[in-house]
């Protein structure tokens, strides 16, 4: 850690851990409901559990991106954050807004629009909060003489993400128009500007962890985000096939979204090549594992499983079935959840001066959660494909089919247990790292040598 104000990232990361844990609990509620055990229906009906599950996800990922920015921007710009206190205020405001929204969901206070359930008055608070965040990092970048590609891509990615929240707030009485704007938020986030954020954070981690030359890494960053926008913007069309929009979207969406996996493939090749190329072996191997793992799993979840149902001929039958849930889980996990866990794994030792990553449990958390998520994806896949064949192709009744596939949700729950063990270990390690109080060091943060003066039992201090 070079600057005192980078510490604020810890607050955001701790929030991530808390919200992720809650998200998993709500996942179980829905898993059990699908398996036929909906005992909580009168207290937490399915729609409340779902809105909570997905909004917690979006909220902790945003908190993770903000934490990452508050860490990376001072480092890249070589100066303290413009207003460190404001960053803490902004964190508290974000948490208060989020908690209010979640309580609201349980009291039937929401907008029934998938992923954008946060009620309108709270939307404005979210916008103000994000503006404070953008202002803070924007001013920091502006004031710094150093404007690295990584920090600029990160900044513009975050700014665009904030702006794209606005179309979701356009009021309308027409369901088709409603849906049209909703995708500007949902799709242009995950398959557009969030990929910019992802590319920037991955680049930063690769520069730090592999020691490959910045110029090379940043050049490829441009190529990858170039592919992202080239395919992803018109790829929005894969959501405009069957919602009442013109037929030409079948063509436009089909062709361009079929190219989207290229950006993810690029990201994966890029991470693997840089990790191999980098001569230096950074001691924090687990952070590199999460980084490369993120690039790989995002290709599987978003690229491969996204492609699997993106052609209009296929999507006609899979649209709005559990096949989408299969893709949604692996894509969000691989691309964005693992990204946030990677930056947390990298920064924690530097912030706290402890080296929990040396412990076997750090690798265990990585492998267990990934194997668990892969098994969950398989369970969703079997349930989803069965649903498509029985309900959409053979014309069986919805509820009859749901009864048939209940057993796959028992499988989902078992897989989710494994996943939860991995996540639990990660969170436990986060707690073991303790509070951020490592001494400040200028530069040279790659060198981690055990200090000579540690007494037994006291964790070694990572030089940063």
């Amino acid at each position, binding site marked *: 850690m070079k600057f005192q104000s980078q510490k604020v990232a810890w607050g955001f990361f701790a929030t991530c851990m808390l919200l992720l844990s809650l998200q998993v609990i709500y996942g179980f509620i*829905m898993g059990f*409901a*699908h398996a036929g055990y*909906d005992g909580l*229906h009168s207290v937490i*009906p*399915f*729609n*409340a559990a*779902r*809105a909570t599950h997905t909004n917690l996800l979006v909220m902790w990922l945003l908190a993770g991106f903000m934490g990452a920015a508050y860490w990376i921007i001072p480092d890249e710009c070589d100066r303290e954050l413009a207003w460190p206190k404001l960053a803490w205020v902004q964190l508290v405001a974000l948490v208060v807004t989020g908690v209010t929204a979640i309580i609201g969901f349980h009291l*039937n206070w929401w*907008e*029934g*629009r*998938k992923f954008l*359930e946060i009620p309108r008055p709270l939307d404005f608070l979210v916008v103000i909060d994000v503006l404070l965040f953008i202002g803070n990092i924007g001013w920091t970048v502006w004031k710094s003489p150093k404007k690295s590609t990584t920090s600029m891509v990160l900044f513009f990615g975050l700014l665009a993400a904030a702006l794209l929240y606005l179309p979701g707030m356009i009021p309308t*009485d*027409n*369901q*088709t*128009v409603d*849906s*049209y704007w909703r995708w500007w938020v949902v799709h242009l986030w995950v398959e557009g500007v969030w990929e910019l954020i992802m590319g920037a954070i991955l680049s930063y981690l690769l520069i730090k962890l592999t020691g490959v030359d910045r*110029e090379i890494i*940043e*050049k*490829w960053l*441009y*190529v990858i985000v*170039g592919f992202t*926008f*080239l395919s992803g*913007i*018109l790829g929005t*069309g894969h959501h405009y*096939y*069957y*919602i*009442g*929009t*013109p037929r030409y*979207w079948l063509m*436009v969406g089909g062709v361009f979204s079929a190219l989207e996996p290229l950006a993810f493939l690029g990201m994966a090749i890029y991470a693997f090549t840089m990790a191999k190329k980098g001569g230096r072996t950074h001691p924090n191997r687990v952070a590199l594992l999460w980084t490369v793992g993120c690039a790989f799993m995002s290709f599987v979840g978003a690229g491969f499983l996204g492609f699997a149902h993106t052609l209009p001929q296929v999507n*006609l039958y899979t*649209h*709005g079935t*559990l096949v989408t*849930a299969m893709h949604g889980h692996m894509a969000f996990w691989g691309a964005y959840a693992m990204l946030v866990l990677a930056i947390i794994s990298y920064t924690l030792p530097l912030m706290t001066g402890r080296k929990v990553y040396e412990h076997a449990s750090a690798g265990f958390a990585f492998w267990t959660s990934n194997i668990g998520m892969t098994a969950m994806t398989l369970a969703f896949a079997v349930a989803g494909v069965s*649903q498509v*064949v029985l309900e*959409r*192709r*053979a*014309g*069986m*009744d*919805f*509820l009859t089919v*749901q009864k048939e596939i209940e057993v796959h949700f028992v499988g989902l729950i078992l897989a989710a247990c494994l996943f939860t063990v991995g996540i639990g270990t990660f969170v436990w390690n986060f707690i073991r790292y303790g509070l951020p109080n490592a001494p400040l060091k200028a530069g040279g943060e790659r060198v981690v040598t055990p200090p000579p003066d540690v007494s037994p039992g006291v964790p070694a201090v990572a030089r940063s």
Partner: protein
Amino acid sequence: MLSKSAAKAFFLGGTAITLAVFLSLTWDTFQQIPGRTNAAALTDQVKRGKHLGEDNNCMGCHTLFGEGAYYAPELTKVYERRGPVFIRSQLKDPEAMFPGQRKMTNYHFTDDEVEALVAFFEWAGKVDLNGFPAKPTLGAPAQVLVAAAPSAQRPQVFSQICVTCHALGGLGGTVGPALDGVGTRLDAAYLEKWLKDPGAVKPGTKMPKLPLDDAQLGELVTFLSSQKTLKEVAQ
């Protein structure tokens, strides 16, 4: 080898071009939406139905236009598939039609609200969705078969509600017994008592107490009483 500035130009140029195309298509789409969605039919009642659905987050369990959750039936074509009588019954008493199955929240809607939702589903079913939901390719759906069966004197409430659980002439659900020849088995007085409140006649029965008004009840009793066995018809 590609230089960093060439890479940057690729990024900026590619983004600008695709964005321009995307915005033009968006403009064109908005010209076409009113026609494709039959916007002229968006009455105040339909709009009210849309916002009622939104305020209660029906899409947190259901899908509409294929968007939403995967826990409850797709609602785009529910007006065509089930009909208004069924939808009213489902909204008034969600447990009635599928006792012991997956649960839907009871919102205690007023009659006006129920009608607004029904109107909304009628509108939604007519939007041009480029062929979604597709007709099943491997077999005809059960509900369509029921609707296609000769139903000249069948009361609407019978072909929309009772057939989900009962078969008549070999078509329909299997939750309750087939109703062929029920007019021979049971007399009108019993039928009326039964339909008013099955639980009162036979405690613990799986047949639900359905929200039927007097006119519907009368129609049903007449119709059921006319379902005689072949032997009796021959006499």
